[in-house]
């Protein structure tokens, strides 16, 4: 059971939000744009995601979100700082910086992310320098902001711009140090009073705290999203390929992959083909027909999962599955037979429900086969060998809603003499073999 339990197919076709533990993060980050009533929180979320697209990797989006967040923080802080008693020039600088920084959002909106980060950090640095060295002077305490913004570039520049981030950061740190070394030079006359100086220094500390807080928070959300995307990819991969095959193929590039084929001495192969499908295809639109196949084969998929039978693939209206591929060859033929019976039951019920003249022919054969993945593109798990050739021939000879089987499968029946002989069949590879048929209650009961 464990071999198949790790594959959870239904998760994939339903929207993944509902089923994943990381769903909350996903809804918050990606679907923020869908919130129609702009609550303050919703509005904040939406504004911080300006310029972020769904196709973007969460790791890249992180830097853009942080840039927008710092713009918003600055926009909130600016009015508070403007209200502090200070020379007019100081207020003008603050307002100018506040306005210029808003352009960053526009740049992000136009996908000029590196430029946006550069503008944010440069305007902040130039603003602080103007305030300290030209405007209100060192006694206002604005130089402490230069210290804090010395680490902002590292959190805001896109991944490939570390050099530029280091440059701007060093300049900011230098501005702070210069203010300390040349304190006597800058605007000695201004004395803003203890309250203003304290507010400026505390404001700088607060900004540092906010940078720390948001950096951590947004990094965590991005991690959650990357993890979610990875688990979705893995889940999908485990659905299209058996997990041991996916694990072996993963990590090697297409051209360097070894042929992946495993020899199995005893596998029970089921080939199930829809009888009356050609007739149906003449009366139904192709879309309808594909929908019909999808519905029926999805029910078969669930059957296989429950019966410890491995679905191999579908080819047109044929469904191929096998038992005994996971080191569970013991009693593989009886598992395959009960799965085949269940397929017939499910099809009969399906045909009744939809009012269609639909049936299946099933061939079950037991023997040697090779399982694996061929080629480099459109990889799919497939089965080759004598057992497959026999099962195909058996399917063609089977009665509608009946099972045709070969000798090695027949011996697994509680009453091996129950099936009626079908005579000799000729497999695709030219081999002849005796075949038997199970019909009526024996096949579906």
């Amino acid at each position, binding site marked *: 059971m464990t071999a198949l339990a790790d594959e959870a197919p239904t998760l994939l076709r339903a929207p993944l939000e509902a089923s994943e533990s990381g769903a909350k993060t996903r809804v918050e980050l990606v679907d923020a744009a869908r919130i129609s009533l702009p609550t303050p929180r919703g509005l904040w979320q939406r504004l911080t995601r300006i310029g972020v697209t769904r196709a973007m990797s969460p790791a890249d989006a992180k830097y853009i979100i942080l840039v927008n967040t710092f713009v918003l923080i600055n926009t909130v802080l600016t009015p508070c700082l403007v209200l502090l008693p200070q020379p007019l020039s100081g207020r003008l600088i603050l307002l100018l910086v506040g306005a210029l920084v808003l352009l960053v959002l526009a740049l992000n909106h136009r996908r000029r992310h590196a430029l946006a980060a550069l503008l944010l950090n440069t305007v902040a640095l130039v603003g602080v320098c103007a305030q300290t060295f030209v405007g209100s002077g060192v006694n206002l305490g604005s130089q402490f902001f230069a210290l804090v913004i010395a680490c902002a570039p590292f959190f805001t520049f896109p991944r490939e711009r570390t050099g530029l981030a280091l440059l701007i*950061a060093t300049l900011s740190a230098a501005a702070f140090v210069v203010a300390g070394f040349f304190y006597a030079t800058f605007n000695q006359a201004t004395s803003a009073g203890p309250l203003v100086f304290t507010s400026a220094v505390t404001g700088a500390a607060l900004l540092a705290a906010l940078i720390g807080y948001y950096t951590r928070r947004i990094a965590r959300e991005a991690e959650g999203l990357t993890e979610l995307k990875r688990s979705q990819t893995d889940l999908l991969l485990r659905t299209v390929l058996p997990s041991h095959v996916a694990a072996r193929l993963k990590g090697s590039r297409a051209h360097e992959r070894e042929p992946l084929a495993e020899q199995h001495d005893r596998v029970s192969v089921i080939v199930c083909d829809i009888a009356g499908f050609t007739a149906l295809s003449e009366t139904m639109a192709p879309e309808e027909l594909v929908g019909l196949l999808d519905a029926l084969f999805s029910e078969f998929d669930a059957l296989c999962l429950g019966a410890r039978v491995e679905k191999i693939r579908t080819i047109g209206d044929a469904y191929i599955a096998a038992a005994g591929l996971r080191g569970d060859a013991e009693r593989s033929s009886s598992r395959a037979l009960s799965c085949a019976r269940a397929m017939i039951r499910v099809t009969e019920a399906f045909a009744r429900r939809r009012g269609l003249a639909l049936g299946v022919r099933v061939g079950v054969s037991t023997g040697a086969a090779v399982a694996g993945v061929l080629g480099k593109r459109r990889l799919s798990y497939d089965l080759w060998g004598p057992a497959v050739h026999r099962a195909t021939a058996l399917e063609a000879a089977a009665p509608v809603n009946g099972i045709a089987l070969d000798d090695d499968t027949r011996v697994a029946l509680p009453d091996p003499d129950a099936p009626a002989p079908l005579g000799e069949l000729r497999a695709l590879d030219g081999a002849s073999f005796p075949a038997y048929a199970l019909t009526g209650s024996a096949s579906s009961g």
Partner: protein
Amino acid sequence: MSGRGVTRLTRLGVDDALTGVDAQRVVLINVLALLGIAIIASLTAISAITRTELALAVQLSAAAVLLLVLWLHGRRRYWEAAVMIPLVVIFAGVARPLLALDLPGSHDFLIVNAMLPFLVLPVRFGRTAETLSLVSVLLCGLLTYRDATRYTYQELMALNTSYLQSQYVSMAVVMVCIGLFMRRINLRADAAAEAERARAELLLHDVLPAPIADAMIAGDGASARRHGDVSVLFANIEGFATIAAGLAPLEQVTLLDGLFRVYDDLCDRHGVEKIKSFGDVYMVASGLESSGGEHAERLTAFALELVAATEAYARRRGRALPLRVGIHSGPVVAGVIGEMRFTYDLWGDTVNTAQRMEANGVRGRVQVSFVTYSKINHKFRCELRDVIEIKGKIPMQTYLVRAPDGGRTP
């Protein structure tokens, strides 16, 4: 101390049990502890006011706590070590007013400390980090106000020049260091996470066409879609099962694998879409993407090379592999069905007819339907084959495409 010794000290507590980001964080904390000790030492060396008995006692205790951080890492006590870093800065900040120590401005490190807890503490200590940060901001405000009521910044600087200047330099260095370090941590973590995801995605894109795979990863599902005009090709080695009957099953599969790899490369080169292979049948389509112009011509050119490539492969392997190829053009429905082991597939009468073009084909030749012929005859020389009877169909006129050497120029 030698460079290697420093490296070993910064990696104290890092072992294989720690994953990437956690290990990096331990290194960051070690670097901060060493940097802190260096700062304390240089402050003591540079500024006379730090050399009173009381001041020395405070600084020695701070240095001792920083050594404790390294010791804790040696004992693999990670979160205790992490929390010591912001605590020691708070201690140095409050020691002064509590002990009536005359070191004005010594609390400025609390500004850096407002950010530090978020960077050094493990993710699950979010609440602790927030508290330590908030305490730092409040203390910074209180202590700054205490100084500011007595001195302006310039007066303060004039009184304690060397002390404050060296402290500011250290603050600036610490700020740039932690920024740079955090960036390194982030970049590495991102790269690792994306590499892991890319590995799975790369394989997935070898299984399903990229748009289908991406839609399914995004949870949108992939509903079947109608395409009005595409060309579909089937290729099959005639009687492969009997040809290969003398080979062991594994050898048969290896023979096919080699052949299909050649075909897959040809698909890439001609820009046609492999749909699937099953058994010894290989199925290709073109015109499914929006760049559908000339899809029949592209597929025919591909088919002719397929025949040539198969002959070359058969010669290399020393056995006869007679290939039949059939092409037909028309509308199809494309998509995936079922919930497990789904493959991208095509349905519709066009597919059935294309398969019959192959089944009724001629060894080593490409057979096309009249529909396909009418699309390609301006570019390829074709010869009319007799009207043939196809199972379940009205009789159809089919054509055999001539190989390019005789066919390109009419």
